[in-house]
């Protein structure tokens, strides 16, 4: 299928005309990281234009959440970004908590930070595995999956599932972390620096990787701001935006960490930012673990959280509250809230509108992957088609996050 502009060439071998070739990539292809379709116009091997077509995974989560109670919303939030579910849960729950004015206990805050940061590491590990796979390196995928497996076990021990966690509740957590959680996480943290060193030697200093990523698909700081790019990809272009520093939530201002920023804006910088972020995340987790004290894990306010199981056996009032919370849920006051958070992909926030009922009047997800996908064309233009495949991966889109 070819269609497009006629280009005239006048060479020493004679004059001839060529046409741009339009090819279709996806929607079902491993290198598009989900069901993403791209229509690419090529001049030889160089990209003239690139148009993403999205929406194949559109599930209508926002509309569904408008017809479920606030508490049921956690079931849907993590299904959007299935690689980084805790971040979506946290963003949604923070919005709800701002509406109802819940007071989250310190232990719950610490556990949230630990899990969200571990999930960021897990998400970046998937990023490295798949990006290098697109570059033709098969082994890194097994290395990163090996480390991610340990994290998945931690998430499973905490929430009961390996995906779609739904562990956070308005006001705290669903239940306390299991016995042995701290040792489990410490075990991971102790082994992780060695793996990071391995990754850095094996990949980041690898000649082939450097040749394929240095100076390729460059996005300047001005372009990144113009394209509404956020997250690690923006920080690779010198935009120092990180909401954990800018508008700290869940007690992130308590922890000592720095935000890696690179100014190169090429694919290598987008890889390097995420590599450094994993180190910082592990450091945050260690601090949070050190300060993890025993205590309550949910706001004791009976209007928003379920009474403890033992009270149901001897308190009629507890049974009533339990029944009401399960059947109807709580009723936040009227208002519109938005809490920006930093997911592994960029700015993530839920714009929640309450009309005083027990279900949100409107939920709008500001999903980072959708806005980030727009940077694909400006950075790929003029580059080689083979580089475009790595370039898609370097923005780390999760198509569930794009399509909602």
């Amino acid at each position, binding site marked *: 299928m070819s269609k497009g502009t006629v280009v005239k060439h006048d060479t020493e071998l004679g004059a001839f005309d060529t046409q741009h070739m339009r090819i279709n990539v996806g929607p079902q292809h491993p290198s598009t990281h989900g069901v993403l379709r791209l229509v690419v116009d090529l001049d030889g091997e160089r990209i003239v234009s690139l148009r993403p077509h999205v929406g194949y995974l559109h599930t*209508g989560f926002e509309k569904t959440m408008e017809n479920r109670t606030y508490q049921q919303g956690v079931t849907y939030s993590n299904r959007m970004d299935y690689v980084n579910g805790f971040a979506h849960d946290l963003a949604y729950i923070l919005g709800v908590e701002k509406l109802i004015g819940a007071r989250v206990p310190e232990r719950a805050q610490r556990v949230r930070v630990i899990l969200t940061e571990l999930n960021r590491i897990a998400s970046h590990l998937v990023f490295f595995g798949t990006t290098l796979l697109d570059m033709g390196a098969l082994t890194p995928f097994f290395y990163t999956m090996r480390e991610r497996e340990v994290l998945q076990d931690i998430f499973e021990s905490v929430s009961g599932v390996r995906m779609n966690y739904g562990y956070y509740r308005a006001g705290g957590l669903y239940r306390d972390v299991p016995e042995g959680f701290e040792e489990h996480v410490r075990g991971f943290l102790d082994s992780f620096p060695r793996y990071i060193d391995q990754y850095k030697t094996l990949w980041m200093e690898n000649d082939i990787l450097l040749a394929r990523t240095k100076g390729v698909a460059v996005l300047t700081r001005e372009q990144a701001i113009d394209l509404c790019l956020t997250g690690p990809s923006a920080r690779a272009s010198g935009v120092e935006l990180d909401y954990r520093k800018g508008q700290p939530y869940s007690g992130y201002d308590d922890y000592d960490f720095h935000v890696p920023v690179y100014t190169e804006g090429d694919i290598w910088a987008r890889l390097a930012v995420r590599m450094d972020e994993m180190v910082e995340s592990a450091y945050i987790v260690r601090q949070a673990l050190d300060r993890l004290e025993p205590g309550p894990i949910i706001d004791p306010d009976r209007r928003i959280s379920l009474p403890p199981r033992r009270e149901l056996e001897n308190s009629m009032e507890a049974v009533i509250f339990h029944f009401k919370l399960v059947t109807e849920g709580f009723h936040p006051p009227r208002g519109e809230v938005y809490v920006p958070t930093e997911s592994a992909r960029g700015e993530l926030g839920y714009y929640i509108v309450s009309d005083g009922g027990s279900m949100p009047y409107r939920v709008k997800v500001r999903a980072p992957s959708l806005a980030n996908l727009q940077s694909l064309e400006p950075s790929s233009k003029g580059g080689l088609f083979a580089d475009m495949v790595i370039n898609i991966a370097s923005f780390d889109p999760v198509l569930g996050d794009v399509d909602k």
Partner: protein
Amino acid sequence: MSALLERLAELGGVQHEFKGMTSVTVPKRAVLDALRAARADGLEMLTDIHGMDYLTYPGHTGKRFAVIYNVHDVAGRRRLFIRVDLDDGETLPTATGLWSGASFLERETFDMMGVVFDGHPDLRKLLTPEDLEGHPHRKDFPLGETPTLFGDGRFLDPASFRAGLSGRDQGLTGWKGGARDGVVASQTPKAPGTAQRPEKSGS
């Protein structure tokens, strides 16, 4: 920030505060000027554009739709919501001239709410299939659920059942959880929302 808010007030903006979030409702003709003023004041990044449909919002009297622009500074410390109220059929000028990243955000708003952005270079649907009619996030878009059938021909209509739970209706018991504003505790309970099954037609 205060200089910017003064400038927006000059443009006809009305300021609201809620839980530390500042939003300014500006007239439709001033929306691009307001965005330019915000950008000149250091709110350089556009995070989101999204629509609101207040069709069934209790007590809402103004125009039916609103479009909300979410702008913030590069450090992520200051944020402003610029709102425009719209009636059905009213259009907005595109912001793609200010941020090229507004393209997808406006397409999504067009797709979900049906707000048309004049001058957008490529205003097509973004997420829903091309042959889907209507705009799913409008409040009058049907959900397409099936009523649940019980014995004796009774059935539970999902929409009216949920309306009972959502506070737009008194619900099964009238209990409002205590945290809701403007609700008197002693509302009379109401019977569950059951209804007779409609007669089959044409048989």
